[in-house]
Structure formats: C-alpha cells, structure tokens
C-alpha cells in the first residue's frame, strides 16, 4: 500500500462515515505526523484566500496573521509550490518579521506548510504546527505531502467555482481577511455610516493600535456575539479587551460558556471586556450570551 492509499485510509477512519472535508483530512494528517494542530486556507477567487479549517485558536492565529500580513510559511509554500519546513519558528524572525513575532509568543515552535495543488493549479495551502521545535522525519514529510494531495482533491471537488482557480496568477499570493472581518466591516459600516473601505481601515487601525495580531481578532469576537449591537465606544473597547497577556485559554473552558455557542472571546478578555462595556455603556448590558457571566 503506498503512502497515498495509507493516508486516504486514515482520512476515512477520521471521517467515520461522514463526508470527507479538508478539515477531516487535516485532522488525520495532524495525528499521523504528530502535529499539535493544523489550519487550511483555500483560494476563493482572484487575490483572495480564506481560512476554511483550523484545529484551535493557535492554528487560527497562524492563518489570520498570514492572511493579513501577507507573509509566512503557507504563503511561501503557496507561491513556491513546495513544502516549507520551519523546525524552529523563533529562528525564522528575519525571514518573516511580521509573522514570527505574532505566533512565537503563543507557543508555536515548529511549522510545516504545504501547498495544495492539482497539476500545478493552486488550490490553497495548509500548515501543521507543533509546540516543540524540531523537524519532520523523512517518513512524516512524505506522509504530510500525501495528505496535502488528498486535501487538494477534496477542496477542488467541493469548490463552488473551480474554474476560477486555473486562471489565478501564480506568482502573487492571494491574501484577504477571513469572512468574519468582512462581516464586522459591514456591521461597522451600518452603525457608523461608513463605506466598507473606511470600516475595514478602522478595524485595521484599531488592531494595529492595540497590538492585536490581525483584524480577525476584534472582528471575530464581535460578530460571534449573538444579537450584539455595538456602539462607537465599544470598538476600541473590544480591541483593548482582547489584548490581554495570555489570550489563549478558551472562553469555552468557563462554566456556563458552552463550547460551540459562538463566543471566541479569550478567557482573560472576558473580564476586560465586561469592565469596558460597563464603563462605556454605563449600564449592565446583557452582552454576548456566551461570556459565561452576567455583567
């Protein structure tokens, strides 16, 4: 049995009867090569790529930062059509000065990025990360390449408009914000009567101002909250709240804050967020339901 067949068998075990998605392919890949997590970004159109699967918040961050900074291992894997192996992320700060400082502090120590392609047509890129430094063994590398090939086929088959992929410029990496940033930009535009470009600029500005790694952060927490209507004051508040020393314990770990309810607030951010909302609105606001507390 060759590597592709074996990889496909692992994928089917992970799918357990459900339809195979890129998410399932990479869950199997991460387990097979001993990675702590994975993320997959697919090309969605000319100049656009979109995060479609992420195992956890660290994986999301890895992709978000690459999508907004335009640099990083996945970006290089995509443009070079070759795997990018980073056994020690901290040693790669010169190569990606915008990317490394955002992901190194959260414990990403090794990264392995793979292009997803079919006959030279780029479908996207995926990365596997580890919390400990070190390379992939030759066998793990070969396995990871096999999974990337499978993921490319799955993605291509499920792509709503695969024809667009063949026409993409090969040398320029697509970039773009995840859907949640566009959703937030729409909300901001409607609330503050801005056009979309201005709204995106403001999100970006707040992100950079408050040292958030990517506009995906305030945007995600904002749109994830059900029926949340914001005010001008809460936008800087959101970004301020999110910039907490240790943003990674998931909010879902807190009692009453059910995982999957949509709240992606970092645990520490809840406290800052609650305080700031109270300060800005002057009253107890029900806030996102999944904050796990009553303001």
């Amino acid at each position, binding site marked *: 049995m060759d590597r592709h067949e074996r990889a496909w068998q692992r994928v089917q075990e992970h799918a357990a009867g459900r339809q195979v998605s890129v998410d399932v392919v990479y869950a199997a890949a991460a387990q097979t090569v001993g990675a702590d997590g994975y993320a997959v970004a697919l090309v969605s159109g000319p100049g656009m790529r979109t995060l*479609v699967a992420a195992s956890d918040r660290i994986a999301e961050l890895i992709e978000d930062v690459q999508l907004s900074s335009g640099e990083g291992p996945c970006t290089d894997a995509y443009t070079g059509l070759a795997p990018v192996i980073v056994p020690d992320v901290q040693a790669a700060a010169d190569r990606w000065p915008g990317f490394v400082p955002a992901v190194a502090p959260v414990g990403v120590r090794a990264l392995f990025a793979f292009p997803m392609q079919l006959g030279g047509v780029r479908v996207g890129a995926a990365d596997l990360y580890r919390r400990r430094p070190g390379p992939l063994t030759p066998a793990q590398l070969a396995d990871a390449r096999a999974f990337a090939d499978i993921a490319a086929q799955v993605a291509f088959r*499920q792509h709503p408009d695969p024809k667009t992929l063949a026409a993409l410029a090969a040398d320029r990496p697509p970039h*773009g914000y995840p859907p949640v940033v566009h959703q*937030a930009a729409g909300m901001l535009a409607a609330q503050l009567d801005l056009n979309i470009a201005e709204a995106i600029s403001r999100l970006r500005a707040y992100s950079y101002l408050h040292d958030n790694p990517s506009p995906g952060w305030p945007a995600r927490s904002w749109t994830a909250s059900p029926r949340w209507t914001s005010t001008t004051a809460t936008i800087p508040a959101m970004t301020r709240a999110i910039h907490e020393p240790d943003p990674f314990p998931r909010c879902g770990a807190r009692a009453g804050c059910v995982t999957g309810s949509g709240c992606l607030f970092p645990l520490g951010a809840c406290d800052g967020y609650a305080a700031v909302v109270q300060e800005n609105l002057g009253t107890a606001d029900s806030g996102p339901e999944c904050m796990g507390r009553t303001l």
Partner: protein
Amino acid sequence: MNTEPESQFEADPEAGAESGFEQALLPAQIHQAAGMVAVHLDTTIQDAYHRLESYARSSGRDLDDIASDVVGRRLRIESP
C-alpha cells in the same frame, strides 16, 4: 419537480464542514452585506445570510447583486 434551490446557509450539523466551507468561499461583499443586514435588522450574522438569500430568491436576482446593492446602500432589507 421541486426547483427550490438549496440554501447555502442551512445550519445542518451533519453537513457542518461542507456548508461552512461553501460559506467561507463566498465573495467578501456578501459577508459585508450580511454584517450590515445584521445591524439593520438587529439579528444574528447567520440569520442575516438567510435574509439576503431569501431576498435574492424572491426577487429573482443573484445573491452577488443583492449584496452589492446593500453594501452600496442602494438597497436596505427591511423586516418582513
């Protein structure tokens, strides 16, 4: 024969990965329009996608066109 097109936004837990995938690949403008509709109608993002889609379906126009009009403020989707 039922010609009702399938919704791209059905929240089907069994098809979670696939529908999420479809939605993730929509043009940026549709996400932006959904954000605006969510505010206008004081509803969730997910519901806003549904409203956009049903508006497009009932008016016989493309979702892309509807989103473009919402973002360009030529169209405001009101509560039913």
